[in-house]
Structures are given as C-alpha cells and as structure tokens.
C-alpha cells in the first residue's frame, strides 16, 4: 500500500515539475493559457472524482464552480481584495461552507436523485445571478487584476506565468493530498460505500457522514477550480460558470479522464481543452458534434477513460483499475 502510494507521489511530482518547466521555458503563451484553464477545471474534476469513487455523480457542481469564481471576482470588486492568497482560499472555504450546509440534505440521496438535487440547487443560483443587475446579470463582470504578496503586474505574460505556476503548485498539492486521502481508511470507505452501504454501516462507520465529508471536499475543490478559472479568464458570467451545461462539462471530463488516478483529471482536462480549441477552429459549426461524439466513444470503447489508455501504453495493464474496479463494472450488470 505504502509502496504504491510512493510511486504515484513520485509520478505526480515529476509530472507536474516537467509541465511547469515546459511551461516556463518552452510553451507559447496560448498553450500556457490553455493549460491554466484546463488545470483550473481539473481541480473541480478531482472533486468530482472523489464523489465518483463513491458511485455518486453530481449534475450540479457548476454551483460550486460558480460560487468559487464569483467569490474571487466579488472580493476584488466589492472589497478591493485581489490578493490571491486570500481570494483563492476564500473561494474554496465559501464553497465548502455551502457544500457543508447543503450536504445535510444531499447526503441522503443516491444515484439519479443525487444528480437531480444538485442540478436543482445549481439552477437556483443560475437564476438568481442572471436576474441580479448589480452583478451584471447575463453579462457578468470583469475580475480585477490579481496580486500575490501584494505584488501585481501589468505584463500579461508575467501574470500568465505566475498563474500557471500557481495552478501547477496547487494542482500538485491537491493531487497528492487527495491521493493520500483515498488511500487512508476514511478514503477507502469510498469504494466500500459504493459497493455495499449496509456492510459499511455494520463496520461501525456512518455512511451519511462519510458521504457528507466527501461532498464538502468536492465542493471545496470545485470552488477552488472556479476561483482559478475566474483569474485565468479575467471574467465571470452565469452562462459559462453556473449553467447546467457547465456541470455537464465537468462530468464529461471526469468520464473522459477515468477514475484510475488523481493525475487523470489533469490530463483529461487538457485533452478536453485542446479538443475543443481545435474542433472549434477546424469546424466552427460542428465542434459540439466532435465533443459529443468523443464522449460517446469514451463511454462505449474506453470506459476506464484516457488514464487506462495511457497506462496501457506505458505497459501497466492494471493501472487503469487501481485499488478497485470501475463503478459501472462493479455493479455487476453485464451488457446485454
């Protein structure tokens, strides 16, 4: 167990270090900016991954994504706080608090009801934001230039590199912590809950509390991702931060990435971002078609996500299914 954890830790560290170095010395600005956007979203996807390991999928995590993004944007606009060491943690904490509150209700739900209740909550926030004129309604508003340790910059490339390194560092930290959590007793309840709730209860653990904890964690991560996204884009608006299609996108990337590893969301998000950019550039009227078709192909032919492909290519046949098997196969229902 410890042995396998160490391997992933080394992998994550080397992986993120390589990306950070590539980013600073090799990659052009636009690719840096896309990686920044992709990794911001990946933080949220890690949050969804934690839930997915429990067999729960939320169609409403745009709620926390939007809360995080708007928290960062509003701290700058209303209170003049642009310090990222304050705004980003605030985004995570605020989302976590909301997740904690709603968690008391949501933790009782499973499957489609869990998905739907999250959807309903996120759509309520969407409706409120769209109708709030002081927050720019449909337009949203611009995010103030961020500062770190009180320092800001007018140079777009410096800001981009700083944010990029920031998201790499936070991404690494999140990946490592979540990985350790999933390996811990509390974390491994995740899979146990998915497989058999009653058995978990007999072991003396409260399923509701375990799920509640994971829910808060995923809310915090998604809020953090939203906060980074607001900084990366310099703009927040309800349509691209809170609408149900955003939730759909997050779930999509989760499936695309596969549940195999905490590194998968980062790779999956990057692929998604590039797929979308190129699809949009090559066939502007059919980029949704390409994205949608990719989703179908993944579901049918690559149920372990991109991660299973990568681990197969690098020679680790079982790496696609570490710790335990995938949710859908564990339900034991064969394809007809």
């Amino acid at each position, binding site marked *: 167990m410890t042995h396998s954890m160490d391997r992933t830790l080394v992998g994550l560290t080397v992986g993120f270090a390589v990306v950070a170095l590539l980013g600073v010395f090799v990659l052009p600005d636009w690719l840096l900016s896309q990686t920044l956007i992709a990794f911001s979203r990946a933080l949220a996807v890690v949050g969804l991954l934690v839930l997915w390991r429990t067999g729960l999928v939320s169609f409403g995590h745009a709620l926390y994504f939007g809360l995080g993004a708007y928290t960062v944007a509003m701290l700058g606009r209303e209170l003049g706080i642009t310090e990222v060491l304050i705004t980003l943690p605030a985004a995570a904490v605020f989302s976590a608090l909301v997740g904690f509150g709603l968690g008391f209700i949501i933790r009782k739900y499973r499957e489609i009801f869990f998905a739907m209740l999250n959807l309903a909550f996120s759509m309520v926030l969407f409706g409120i934001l769209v109708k709030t004129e002081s927050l720019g309604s449909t337009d949203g508003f611009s995010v103030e230039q961020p500062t770190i340790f009180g320092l800001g910059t007018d140079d777009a490339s410096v800001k981009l590199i700083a944010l990029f390194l920031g998201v790499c560092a936070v991404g690494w930290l999140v990946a490592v912590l979540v990985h350790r959590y999933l390996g811990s007793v509390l974390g491994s309840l995740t899979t146990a809950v998915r497989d058999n709730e009653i058995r978990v209860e007999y072991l003396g653990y409260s399923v509701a509390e375990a799920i509640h904890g994971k829910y808060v964690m995923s809310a915090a991560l998604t809020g953090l991702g939203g906060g980074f996204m607001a900084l990366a884009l310099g703009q927040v608006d309800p349509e691209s931060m809170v609408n149900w299609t955003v939730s759909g996108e997050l779930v999509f990337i989760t499936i695309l990435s596969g549940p195999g590893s905490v590194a998968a969301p980062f790779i999956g998000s990057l692929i998604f971002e590039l797929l979308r950019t190129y699809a949009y550039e090559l066939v502007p009227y059919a980029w949704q078609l390409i994205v949608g078709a990719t989703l179908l192909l993944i579901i049918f032919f690559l149920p372990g996500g991109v991660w299973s492909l990568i681990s197969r290519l690098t020679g680790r046949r079982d790496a696609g299914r570490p710790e335990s098997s995938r949710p859908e196969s564990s339900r034991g229902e*064969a*394809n007809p």
Partner: protein
Amino acid sequence: MNLALTILVEGLGYASYLFIVSLGLTIIFGVLKILNVAHGAFYAWGAYFCAFLIGEFSAMGVSDLGTMIAIPIAALVVGIVLGSAIERTIIRNLYGRDEVLIVLATFGLFLVLEDVILLLFGVDPYFAFQPTYAMPGVQIGGIYQDGYKLSMIALSLVVGIISWVVLNRTHWGKLVAAIIFDSDLAVAMGINVRRVFYVVFVAGAVLGALGGAYIAPTISVAPGFGVEVIVLSFAVVVIGGMGSIAGAAIGALMVGMLRAYAVLQWPEIELFVVYAVMAAVLIFRPEGLFAPAKARKI
C-alpha cells in the same frame, strides 16, 4: 381579475407544451429507466423540421391554416426516424449500465444532434408564424390572446387523455405497466421487453418532437434553443414524480403557473422559482408528488 385570468391563460399555455414534452421524457424514464438528455434534441428537431415544412408548404401556396398539417408530420417523422435510429444504435447498447453513465451518454448524443441540426438546417433562425396568423385572437381578461395558444391547451388535453387510455385500457398499456412495475418479472412472464422498450422510446421521441413542432410557429427556431427545455422538463418530471403521467401533468401545470405568475407579477424570481420548487419537492417528497407505485422487493 384581468390579471388572474391572464396568469391562468399564460400558465396553461406554457404548461401545455411542457406537458407534452415532459410526458415523452417521463414515459421513457418510467419504462426504460433512462433519463434522456437527448430528449431536448427531439424537441429541437421537431421544431426545426416543422418550421422547415411550414415554410415549404407556404411557398407551395398552402393556406396559413393548412400549413398546420406540418406539425403532426414533423412529430411523426422525427420521432419515428430519429427515435428508431437512436434506440437501435445507442440506447439499446446502454440498457443495464450505470444510470448516471447513461444520462451522460445521452448528453453526448444531445451535443451531436444539436450540431447536426446546424449542418442540416443552417444557422439562420426559422420563422414559421403562418399558423399563428391564421387563428383569430380571442379577447380574454381584457387583452388579446392568440388563438394558437388556446389550441395548444386543447391539444395537450387530447394528448393527455389518449395516453391515459392507451396505458390503462389497452393490452399494450398493461404490458407497459407490468414492465414499469417490475421488468424482471415481466421478462419471466414472457413479455418481449426489448420490443416494448423500443416502442416506448419511439413514442416518447414522437411526443418530444410534437412539443417542439407545436411550439415552432410561436418562436424563432434558432440553434441552441433545446438547451433550456431539457432542464425545465427535468424539473417538471421531478416535481410530478419520475415515470408518472399524472405527475407530468401536475408538474407542468405548477411550472407553467409559477412562471406566468413570476413574469407578470414578480419578474426577478422568474428564472429560479421553478428550480427552487424542484429542490423543495426533492427534499420533502423525493419520489415526486405523484410517484408511480413501486414493486416491493425482498
């Protein structure tokens, strides 16, 4: 008084097309246990095809009222052709897989179908207003309401009654009821579940397309307009109880009335009041207001 009447008429009008669309969604869920996001695509396809046909018929010299024949044609063609194609190629291969994964697959399908519309029908909005101009306005509550909206309310009543009769008074309806109740048992009893699934999916698709086709003459049929109806019909179905026809009717009425009241009296809450009610129903009565009976399994 005028206000109350207007809210009533607006609410009924809004509820009527939501009911037709949601009915399709709810029977598919009830029987196949699939929450079909691509239902929004049936709606959009129905609307596009109908608007396209109305334009063609009108150009051929058909009278404004006569162009309404396009509505059932569009609903049946889109529902049967597209519904069959999708059931045979995609949905069929998903039976028995994780519920949530199926939702996601239909989300992918929705994205694909949306763009095929763009490629096929172009990016320009379609206007198929002829039928609405053909029906005289009626004065209700001091203002003119269009006759078309009233005809929509009538249609939804007819659709509701037909569905009820089919499900409760025919052999097919009993098969469907048996499967909703317990599909394993139905298989054991020798019912061809596959066939029933197919027919129900196509019927649901026809209803989705019918909702779109009927609304088409009153709106600008433009890319992306199927997006909102998906979550709205989710809300209707959740409020009423997933898989229940009476539930779809009650859910649609509630959503329609709430929205009409909000627009006319309290515009700030218009966009979220529906979802707030949806959340409340899930919290206090998660099976919906009219949950279908469930088999008790030991």
